């Protein structure tokens, strides 16, 4: 046994390799370099590196792989590695395994540069060329733009101008993607000067969540739901994205954004699209996104009465006294930024006509919870109405996105004993209960998919533009009057006008 034979990656073979049959249990991406712009930032530390580490631990990263961190802050590669190690230890979901970390860390590099400078990216290009040599990354690049939104245009230009001749290039763009339709279009136009749509991966990290993807499994892998998934059987839908935290250290960002741009424009509308979409013909990126965009197009602009905005004042959350939004550090004392919004939306198509989708999101609500509740029509003629404890309630299918990931169905059941007394009970499917494996973080799935070139879980140009068009229409009506903020106390479930929004229709919000 003299020489050592080194395994070469699969695509080198000219003929199909018969040994691979049955072995492709894991999808591993081709060799590539991941360039993170904004490497000294919060997202890199809290989400990206913990996700990369979890992928490394499970051996899901390519055999030949390198990471290049880029930001203005001066730092050496060594310092950067050790900061990221700390981040992984602090924010990672897995136990810290020295060997797995070393495997990942060996490929980590850092370049300090200002990409607003002319030629600021030359150092990045040179380092990548060097990595192609030393790490075998073959000219394949994934650029992760984890920078403030205002830096994205210039970065796209600079990266585009330096595209190499060999290998593939993919661009991951963080949210927010623009701040209105015009800026989103400009950004899309800028991107399309250098990249084709297949190379662009716009992040909405909600789509990376297992439970959000489970909505598709629930609807399209089961025979019993789809027949009743329409206006004939569904009374209305409620989607809530509730946070108990305040604005924290993100005040300057949030002042510019507000709930409508931070959550409604992306997460909430994506959840509406997944709930309302028609079955895609297959699970390829374009089939799924074609169906989603049809829903977004069918959403009609809600009138002023169908939208509510709010801002929290001081109050108590989990027993702790917290300041109002205007008293938070970095927030203007007369700020008109909304920290809450609710809307009644209609999907104008054959399936959903006249079925309201009530959506709401807010900060400083009583608890953190994201749910989609499908409320069905009541039983038409229940013979035991008067025997029901607390009234006969309609069936509700609840999809818990977070926490307590799972699905539950509320049904009326007979209370044991004499007579015919009915009570609502929950039939639960809890993710953790059935599968007992911790759910992967959204960013793990998304980074891996982008490396594999699978865009199913990313938002396409037309989706983003439809979403902004709706937001712009709502914001335009807001400009006409001054809100009387604050209008809800921290720790309560939002402004009373939000209750009126559903109350007028004879309905009530579910308790968040």
């Amino acid at each position: 046994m003299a020489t050592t034979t080194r395994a070469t990656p699969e695509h080198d073979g000219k003929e199909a390799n018969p040994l691979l049959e049955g072995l492709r249990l894991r999808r591993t991406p081709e060799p590539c370099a991941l360039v993170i712009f904004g490497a000294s930032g919060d997202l890199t530390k809290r989400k990206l590196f913990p996700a990369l580490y979890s992928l490394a631990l499970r051996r899901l990263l390519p055999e030949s792989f390198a990471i290049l961190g880029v930001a203005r802050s001066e730092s050496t590669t060594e310092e950067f590695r050790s900061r990221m190690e700390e981040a992984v230890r602090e924010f990672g979901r897995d136990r810290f395994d020295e060997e797995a970390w070393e495997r990942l860390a060996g490929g980590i590099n850092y370049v300090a540069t200002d990409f607003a400078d002319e030629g600021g990216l030359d150092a990045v290009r040179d380092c990548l060329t060097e990595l192609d040599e030393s790490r075998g990354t073959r000219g394949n690049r994934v650029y992760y733009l984890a920078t403030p939104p205002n830096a994205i245009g210039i970065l796209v230009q600079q990266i585009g101008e330096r595209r190499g001749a060999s290998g593939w290039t993919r661009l991951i763009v963080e949210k927010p993607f623009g701040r209105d339709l015009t800026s989103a279009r400009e950004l899309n136009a800028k991107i399309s000067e250098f990249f084709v749509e297949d190379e662009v991966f716009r992040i909405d990290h909600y789509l990376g969540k297992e439970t959000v993807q489970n909505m598709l499994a629930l609807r399209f892998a089961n025979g019993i739901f789809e027949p009743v998934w329409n206006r004939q059987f569904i009374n209305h839908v409620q989607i809530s994205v509730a946070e108990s935290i305040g604005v924290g250290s993100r005040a300057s960002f949030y002042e510019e954004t507000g709930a409508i741009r931070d959550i409604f424009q992306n997460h909430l509308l994506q959840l509406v699209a997944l709930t309302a979409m028609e079955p895609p013909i297959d699970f390829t990126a374009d089939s799924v996104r074609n169906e989603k965009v049809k829903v977004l197009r069918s959403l009609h602009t809600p009138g002023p009465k169908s939208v509510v905005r709010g801002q929290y004042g001081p109050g108590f959350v989990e027993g702790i006294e917290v300041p109002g939004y205007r008293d938070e550090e970095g927030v203007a004392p007369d700020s008109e930024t909304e920290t809450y919004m609710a809307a009644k939306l209609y999907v104008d198509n054959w399936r959903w006509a006249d079925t309201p989708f009530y959506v709401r999101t807010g900060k400083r609500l009583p608890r953190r919870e994201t749910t989609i509740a499908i409320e069905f029509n009541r039983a038409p003629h229940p013979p035991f109405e008067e025997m029901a404890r607390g009234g006969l309630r309609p069936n509700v299918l609840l999809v818990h996105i977070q926490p307590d990931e799972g699905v539950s169905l509320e049904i009326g059941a007979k209370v044991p004993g004499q007579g015919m007394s009915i009570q609502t009970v929950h039939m639960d499917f809890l993710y953790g209960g059935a599968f007992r494996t911790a759910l992967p973080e959204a960013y793990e799935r998304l980074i891996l998919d982008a490396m594999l070139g699978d865009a199913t879980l990313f938002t396409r140009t037309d989706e983003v533009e439809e979403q902004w068009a709706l937001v712009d229409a709502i914001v335009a009506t807001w400009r006409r009057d001054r809100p009387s903020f604050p209008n809800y106390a921290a720790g309560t479930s939002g402004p009373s006008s939000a209750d009126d929004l559903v109350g007028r229709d004879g309905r009530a919000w579910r308790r968040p």
Partner: protein
Amino acid sequence: MSALAHIDDWTGGDTTVAEIDRRLGDLRRSVEQEGVPDLRTSVLTHLAWVPPEYEQAATDTLAGLAERHPSRAILLVPEPEAETDGLDAEISVRCFSLPGLEAHVCSEVIELRLRGKRAVAPASIVSPLLIADLPVFIRWRGRPDFGSGPFEQLVELVDRLVVDSGEWADLPAAYAQLASLFDRVAASDIAWSRSLEWRRQLAGLWPGIASARRLTVAGPRADALLLTGWLRSRLERELELELEERPELERLAVDGAAVETPAGSRRSASDLLSAELEQFTRDPVYEQAVLACADVQPISA
């Protein structure tokens, strides 16, 4: 990650299936009364046929598995030589708490000792205890007595048979018997899963490996035979096996050239079994490997 919250158990000598069923119900209700809701999640029923000499190993594997595969586990310990006939049972409901979940998640373990004649028709004991509609897996410890009553009955009952051919002495002859079952039950083999990373390495040698003539293995006989059968069936050529028996797969060479050792740590017995319990369909690549290794004559290295 998850922590064992509580175990509740019951032991009964000379009992009946009806009694076991009733006691299980009692246990479930009693744990539910303790405030935190308990969920019995149902993914599959896991049977294990465990001759007494494998009891310890089986219990250890199960301990590592319970929190990953919440289901009902039924351990069958056959003692056909026992002086008296009877059924002894130990049952427990094990509840785990999971981060981010308010409820406990519980799995049930039923350990049955089949004494004397009670070991003759095990399927009739097990059938009433299966969870309705869920897939049934059996992990058969040791070499099955192919064709025997208990084995045949249980194979009829289950969806998947999991063996570890590394536990068998008469290789490769026993593979021919295993192969005769392929049309009746989906079979999988821990010895086969163990070699997964090595198979990936070998696959990486394509296309050079297409003309390989000899595989040299320092490792267990079963793993070596299966790897040879795999290469034979995939590459459609005769390939001889040079074997140096070792308790674990240590080294591989193709036509004398060493294959790079796969990186990463070895998977535990629980990890391996857990992975098998996630497979629900037949594995044609494994089946062909088994068929192709039945006549391999290893030469010693």
